[in-house]
């Protein structure tokens, strides 16, 4: 069962996280934490012509938290704000078990499906995504 949680792809993103660090200067900077376990993540991003051109995460998290953040950055870079919001929304729905995971077309994201079997770890997988959403919200609030 552990292999389902710690898929090879997850371990790879954990050991060699993509887009780790800080975007500077940034249009978005958000901090998220999971008070129960001490996972912490910082998200920063920069937009150009309405698309996310840079998105990075930083922080101290477990393998699931780190891998999920790393995969997320890859999925979101290049997207417009509405597209990114939509993807985050559907990922969070999947992690709540409200919709089922897709197939191969999901790429590395599919590797996070195993987390559903470990309900206490779902919060680790969603931390970076929720934090990014929060960052988007602050960005939108600032502009309106």
């Amino acid at each position, binding site marked *: 069962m552990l292999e389902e949680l710690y898929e090879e792809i997850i371990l790879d993103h954990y050991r060699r996280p993509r887009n780790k660090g800080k975007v500077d200067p940034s249009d978005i900077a958000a901090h998220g934490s999971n008070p*129960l376990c*001490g996972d912490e993540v910082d998200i920063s991003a920069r937009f150009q012509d309405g698309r996310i051109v840079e998105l990075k995460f930083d922080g101290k998290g477990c393998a699931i938290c780190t891998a999920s953040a790393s995969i997320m950055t890859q999925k979101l870079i290049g997207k417009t704000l509405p597209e990114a919001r939509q993807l985050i929304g559907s990922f969070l729905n999947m992690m709540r078990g409200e919709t089922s995971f897709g197939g191969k077309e999901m790429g590395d994201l599919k590797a996070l499906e195993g987390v559903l079997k470990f309900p206490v770890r779902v919060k680790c997988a969603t931390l970076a995504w929720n934090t990014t959403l929060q960052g988007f919200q602050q960005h939108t609030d600032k502009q309106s």
Partner: protein
Amino acid sequence: MIEVLDGVELEEIRDDFPLLQQKVHGKPLVYFDNAATSQKPRVVIDAMNDYYQRYNANVHRGIHALAERATKEYERAREKIAKFINAPSPESVIYTRGTTESINLVAYSWAMTNLKKGDEILTTFMEHHSNTVPWYQVCERTGAVIKRIELNPDGTLRLDDLDKLITDRTKLVTVTQQSNVLGTINPVRQIADAAHKRGAVVLVDGAQSVPHMAVDVQALDCDFFVFSGHKMCGPTASGVLYGKRALLEAMPPFMGGGEMIREVWFDHATYNDLPYKFEAGTPNIAESIGLGVAVDYLSHVGMDKIRQHEKQITQYALDRMREFPEITVYGPKDVEKRGGLVAFTLGDVHAHDIATFADEDGVAIRAGHHCAMPLHKKLGLAATARASFYLYNTREEVDVFIEMLHKAKKFFGACPTGRAMGY
């Protein structure tokens, strides 16, 4: 001679705990999360069932047979608990739902009344949030300020300048007797003496000490002593505030309602005597009776024997953890100075991942900041993993735990962090 639990006794003790007999994910349960809550022996569970099945009634307010029996058992438990911590009288033992409620009672009733702007509360960096946040609330309301005793590199308290830290402004010194992360056992009597010289009041958090060692509140000379039943083989939502009588008598009630009054008029009320003044409403009757039985159970085994057993288990765990160059253990290395728990990091592997890995092998440990965020910030850590032992744990269980750590280390490819971490 120091008495220890022999193999036969240990087997018998394990048989007393129905929950320990189970398998988790197909493996025998290794319960190493005792600092969070302990398991309950059959006698405690039976005593609570017995109350509900045979004499459930409200206390102190009926004249029928059931009410009389319930009241008698409820008060008998109080006497046993008083004796267990050597309180001078049962009236100085107030039932609460646990450590957190006991501390809040002191914060809201005693501190909000007696503290004012510029007064100081002296505490430590190793306190649980429940011995931290209520004091922040007191400071917000009264203008008092928090000061902290520093830590030595080995996780003990730096007491050489204690006399300077305690000033005429210090109104309260509040410390844990045993840290739930570092395991450090603090010299509470020494601190109490220094505090009393300046007229400060002393609160001792006994949540992690009372379950594991003999405690004598009069010998500690503390003014308040608080603990939880659920960490000492008793039910959840049982607990105690012990206080010196003169202090308790001068304190206003914390909550108003039934039971705590003598007479209620159209616009005012007069209050009941101790301890009832602080026990408003229908109390936790089954739980308090259960705690009385837990105290009987622990006394029967013997607190000194329990402490000795935990020292041996802890020593063994510490020795075996030295097999890992990647492991950093926090707190004193000397088992005379620490209680039966070990918080650690395994290289750069996150505590969460270790706990999930452990769970697969049936090993229950805790991961996180253990409700001690200021301490983890002080240590420069986001989280630690923690194994905490009790009277029913065995060396064989430590072996299972160590095997699991070896597997986790291989799986995650733990790298030594190379961080110079002091403790």
